[in-house]
């Protein structure tokens, strides 16, 4: 027999005004297993709490019902109070007789019977309360950041500055990501490299940060506080410990290939740094194009290297380490418009370039040293057409969403072009202009004043004729067809998720939306968290963003990690799902339904009817379960139950309401 104590709160006159609290206590005393029932002026006050503590001892109570305000208000208070007694804090139920009774009903004739019913339900439920304990999970205070672009670097610096070790895994041979490829940043027009490379240097020099370049995450196991991550660092063929970064090897290498960093507009060597300010400032050998590694002939770099750092027998390095938190900052890529837009030449016209190629063209350290020249003949284009929304807002051919940053960088491109080329004409074909941001609209207006001509409509066709690019389109404001003879066309292409998004998403249990952007846990309230505890998102992997938004999100994600790392142990939620292995038939319905990937099937071997049987049963990971209970309904045999809200408890509440 349990011994229930019922405490009815007056809450001054808040409750007592419309509920006859004394009568409620009298009725409560008659309920089964109720050993003691009383009232108190203010249950939540110190004297009120003290009264409960004393009653527990005096009446040998083993569980408590408090009829008071909403459990959303003081459930935590009373749990904390119980923690100081012999009773487990979860042996407590609250009857909400204030917000959902006394405050919404006008007189005692109505309020009192309802309050009695609510107490009955609480008593019925508390009879089936079980002591719950939280388990603690150790937190490994090391963070892993996947992606070394601006978001990844910002997050790494913030976490490292907070005092925790961070590892950055970057798939390219240098940090910097997309931002370092840009020439200037809107709307302030400060040089992208000038603000990005100092961050790269900071990251490289930070004692708390380890950088793994040419690296990718191979597998992830474990859970919040305890992720086991295997990383493969590809062979670099250069010993970074001894290399001084003198770059002599780069000048002597005879193999020239298209530079990825310069978007194919310039050449690089087979042993190379993608750009001068690369971090780490050391070269790697591109095995696919190295003559020595292809057919054993050459080896010039080895001969010229003054410190003997070239290692042609270098191999991939695979390491497995434990991290407490993971930030995914894998960024975006630009849509491959050449496969989609045959009307723009499908990549056959050299002078139809992407916005990122334009960034390289206009960059002082780019292939043309900042002179805007047509790729086909190195002449200065006198007329440039900029086409926006190439791949964005085009559900028929590509993506339905807006890529957010293009309106602004199109304006920036126009501004830069008009600034650098005299007597130039620039036409921008647009659908809408979207400039939400500080100083953004002003920037756009200035571009118009610079002389950029905005034409509202899409370009339907580009024809390459006599070295001119004839752009045909519609001016929807004039309602007429327009044709512009351009020397060069810049396509402002859509941002799409990085190639790795799907694979990394499934490896880490992060859901993807229809376009494969990684999904945050809540679109408004949990924008950097994911559904997997301890895994956060930063930057454009979550959706198209500009630089300030990416940086802000990265710092937010870093803060979440710092909060997690501020404790030595994590307390798991006590009210979580729990599988009864005798009832579970291993059908896996719960596994499929769990939004947190907290449930797995596990093989057990046990004796059944004198035969050893091996079968699968579901198992809940207490570190991941958030206690929603969706699995309990999916479980037909009722093996899955939710602690604190068990089937039995809810059924007793229902029964108490009807049958007492």
């Amino acid at each position: 027999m349990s011994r229930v104590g019922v405490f009815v709160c007056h809450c001054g006159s808040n409750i007592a005004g419309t509920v006859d609290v004394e009568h409620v206590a009298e009725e409560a005393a008659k309920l089964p297993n109720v050993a003691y029932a009383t009232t108190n002026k203010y249950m939540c006050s110190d004297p009120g709490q003290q009264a409960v503590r004393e009653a527990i001892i005096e009446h040998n109570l083993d569980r408590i019902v408090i009829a008071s305000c909403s459990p959303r208000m003081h459930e935590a208070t009373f749990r904390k109070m119980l923690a100081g007694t012999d009773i487990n804090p979860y042996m407590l139920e609250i009857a909400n007789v204030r917000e959902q009774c006394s405050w919404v009903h006008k007189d005692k004739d109505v309020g009192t019977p309802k309050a009695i019913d609510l107490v009955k339900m609480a008593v019925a439920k508390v009879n089936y309360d079980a002591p719950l304990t939280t388990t603690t999970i150790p937190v490994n205070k090391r963070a892993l950041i996947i992606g070394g672009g601006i978001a990844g670097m910002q997050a790494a610096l913030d976490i490292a500055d907070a005092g925790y070790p961070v590892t950055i895994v970057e798939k390219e041979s240098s940090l910097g990501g997309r931002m370092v490829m840009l020439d200037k940043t809107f709307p302030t027009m400060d040089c992208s490299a000038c603000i990005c490379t100092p961050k790269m240097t900071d990251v490289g020099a930070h004692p708390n940060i380890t950088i793994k370049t040419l690296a990718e995450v191979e597998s992830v196991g474990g859970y919040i506080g305890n992720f086991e991550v295997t990383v493969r660092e590809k062979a670099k063929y250069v010993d970074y410990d001894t290399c001084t970064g003198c770059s002599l090897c780069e000048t002597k290498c005879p193999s020239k290939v298209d530079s990825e960093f310069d978007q194919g507009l310039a050449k690089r060597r087979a042993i190379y740094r993608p750009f001068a300010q690369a971090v780490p400032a050391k070269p790697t050998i591109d095995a696919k194009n190295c003559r020595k590694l292809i057919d054993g002939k050459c080896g010039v770099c080895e001969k010229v290297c003054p410190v003997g750092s070239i290692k042609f027998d270098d191999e991939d390095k695979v390491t497995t380490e434990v991290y407490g938190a993971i930030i995914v900052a894998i960024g975006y890529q630009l849509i491959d418009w050449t496969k989609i837009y045959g009307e723009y030449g499908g990549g056959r016209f050299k002078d139809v370039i992407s916005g990122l190629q334009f960034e390289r063209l206009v960059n002082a350290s780019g292939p043309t040293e900042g002179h805007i020249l047509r790729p086909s003949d190195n002449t200065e284009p006198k007329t440039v057409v900029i086409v926006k929304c190439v791949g964005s807002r085009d559900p028929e051919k590509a993506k339905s969403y807006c890529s957010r940053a293009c309106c602004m960088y199109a304006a920036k491109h126009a501004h830069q072009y008009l600034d650098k080329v005299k007597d130039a004409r620039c036409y921008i074909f647009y659908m809408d202009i979207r400039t939400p941001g500080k100083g953004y609209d002003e920037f756009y207006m200035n571009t118009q004043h610079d002389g950029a001509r905005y034409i509202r409509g899409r370009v339907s066709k580009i024809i390459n004729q006599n070295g001119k690019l004839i752009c045909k389109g519609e001016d929807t404001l004039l309602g007429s067809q327009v044709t512009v003879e351009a020397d060069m066309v810049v396509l402002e292409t859509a941002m799409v998720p990085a190639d790795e998004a799907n694979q990394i998403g499934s490896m880490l249990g992060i859901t993807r939306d229809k376009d494969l952007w990684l999904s945050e846990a809540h679109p408004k309230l949990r924008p950097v968290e994911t559904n997997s505890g301890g895994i956060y998102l930063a930057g454009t992997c979550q959706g198209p963003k500009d630089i300030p938004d990416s940086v802000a999100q990265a710092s937010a994600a870093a803060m979440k990690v710092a909060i997690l790392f501020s404790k030595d142990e994590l307390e798991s939620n006590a009210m979580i799902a729990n599988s009864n292995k005798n009832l579970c038939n291993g059908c896996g319905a719960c596994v499929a339904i769990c939004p947190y990937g907290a449930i797995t099937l596990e093989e057990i071997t046990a004796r059944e009817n004198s035969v050893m049987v091996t079968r699968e049963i579901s198992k809940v990971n207490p570190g991941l379960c958030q206690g929603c209970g969706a699995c309990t309904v999916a479980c037909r045999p009722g093996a899955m139950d939710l602690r604190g809200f068990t089937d039995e408890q809810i059924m007793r509440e229902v029964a108490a309401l009807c049958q007492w």
Partner: protein
Amino acid sequence: MSVVNDTQAAASTGTETFEPKILAFACHWCTYSGADLAGLNRMSYPANVRVLRVPCSGRVNPQYILTALNKGVDGVLVCGCHPGDCHYVSGNYYAKRRLMAFRRMLQYTGLEPERFQVRWISGSEAGKFRDTVTSVVEQVRELGPYKPDPALAALIDSSVDASNPVLPEGGEA
């Protein structure tokens, strides 16, 4: 004494209007706080409703609904966050599918649709909570008491007696 005794006795003698008993399952994150807000704003709605707090509408097993109706509740209301707003990402989407199908089944086998309703009510929609509760109470009052099994109805009535509760030996402790 309890309100149940009064109302059912009244209904059976036909001297007073019938007061239905409505059980409302409310998710902790949205509807329950919406109901709290209704109290905070001192809104007023019929006292016929009893809120049963669950963490998420996805926790509401259709079996509870049928059990409640069988045991003498006149109407059941299930409320959760609006689709897309679930604290647990997807619970209400699952609830929606289950309850939609189950509700059709109950109607198919003859239940009045008003006796089992589902609504999405957010934490800020105190007014919607009040209006929903009021309308469900009105609708069910109109229908009269739920007598799932005429032969059993008498039995249920007589079992409503606080001095002789039907409670098994309780507690896991």
